[in-house]
């Protein structure tokens, strides 16, 4: 359990560095370190499926973020209404904490009752789906609806990125629409 706490401390430090770093590239690399910590935490908690997925998605996200932010300093808009922003942030944080205080009291305690539905999955999984990887049998057989929704989300995200980033409809310097190339 100790290594998990050490890892959590490492991830918190990484997140603070990501917030406080002056340039974008250091910030992105600190975010990548936090993601690697998450992946190792999944591995310690004996979830290799999630660890593989987290690691690969983290690599992909790091590449995309570095390609998108390298040699481009995105200025933070700190001027202007900082008082209003701070007041609104503190207000919403207070509302969230107040609601969470009452809501979390009604939740069942952490880890109990342990595995109510999962017991059935573990007992019946191999017999009723034939898949030896139980995670696969859950996400593609018992809970396939969730996977369908997730696939739809990713499809919509890809369509959205392509629709926003394509060249059709963009205006060039002299405000002419270049329609001949995509």
């Amino acid at each position, binding site marked *: 359990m100790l290594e998990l706490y050490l890892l959590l401390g490492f991830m918190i430090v990484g997140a603070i560095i990501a917030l406080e770093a002056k340039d974008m590239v250091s910030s992105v690399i600190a975010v990548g370190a936090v993601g690697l910590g998450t992946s190792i935490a999944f591995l310690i908690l004996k979830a290799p499926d999630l660890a593989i997925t987290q690691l690969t998605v983290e690599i992909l996200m790091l590449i995309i973020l570095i390609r998108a932010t390298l040699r481009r300093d995105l200025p933070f808009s700190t001027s202007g209404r900082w008082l209003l922003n701070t007041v609104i942030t503190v207000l919403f944080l207070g509302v969230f904490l107040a609601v969470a205080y009452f809501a979390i009291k009604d939740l069942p305690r952490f880890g109990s009752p342990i595995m109510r539905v999962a017991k059935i999955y573990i007992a019946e999984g191999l017999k009723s789906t034939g898949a030896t990887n139980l995670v696969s049998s859950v996400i*593609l057989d018992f809970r396939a609806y969730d996977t369908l929704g997730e696939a739809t989300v990713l499809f919509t995200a890809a369509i959205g990125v392509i629709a926003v980033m394509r060249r059709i409809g963009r205006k060039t310097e002299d405000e002419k629409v270049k329609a001949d190339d995509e």
Partner: protein
Amino acid sequence: MSKGPKEAGMTLIVKTITRLTVGLILLYGIYIVTHGHLTPGGGFAGGVIIALSFIHLTLAFGKEVALKKLSKEGTSILDSLGALIFLAIAILGFTGGYFFLNFINKGVPFRLLSAGIIPLCNIAIALKVGAGLFAIFMGLVFLKILDKDKK
């Protein structure tokens, strides 16, 4: 990075290493996908690894080489095909009763061809995720180049 068409991409060392490793990365992604019902992994992780192999190619050789392997139209077609195959498998469950019914014979556990529809679903999701993430990456790279043209 955009030094003209002749020296697009990175140095000779990176190109040589990429030429050796990119096939292995793609193969590992396919292994993760096809063994998703037997060992840890599955459609999503394998699809991301497949997309990463093409992104590796893009980073090392420039976008023309990667687009020759998998064009933009091909990406769109594969993305849509994956989604449609997944939905078709779900709807074909109605032949036996309900949505997402595992209608193929389960087979013997620990065999590659077992678990009914789960390997097929894994392959469909891998197509979807791989093509979709590659399309997102290419979209963001094109944005960067366009911004550079403006300056």
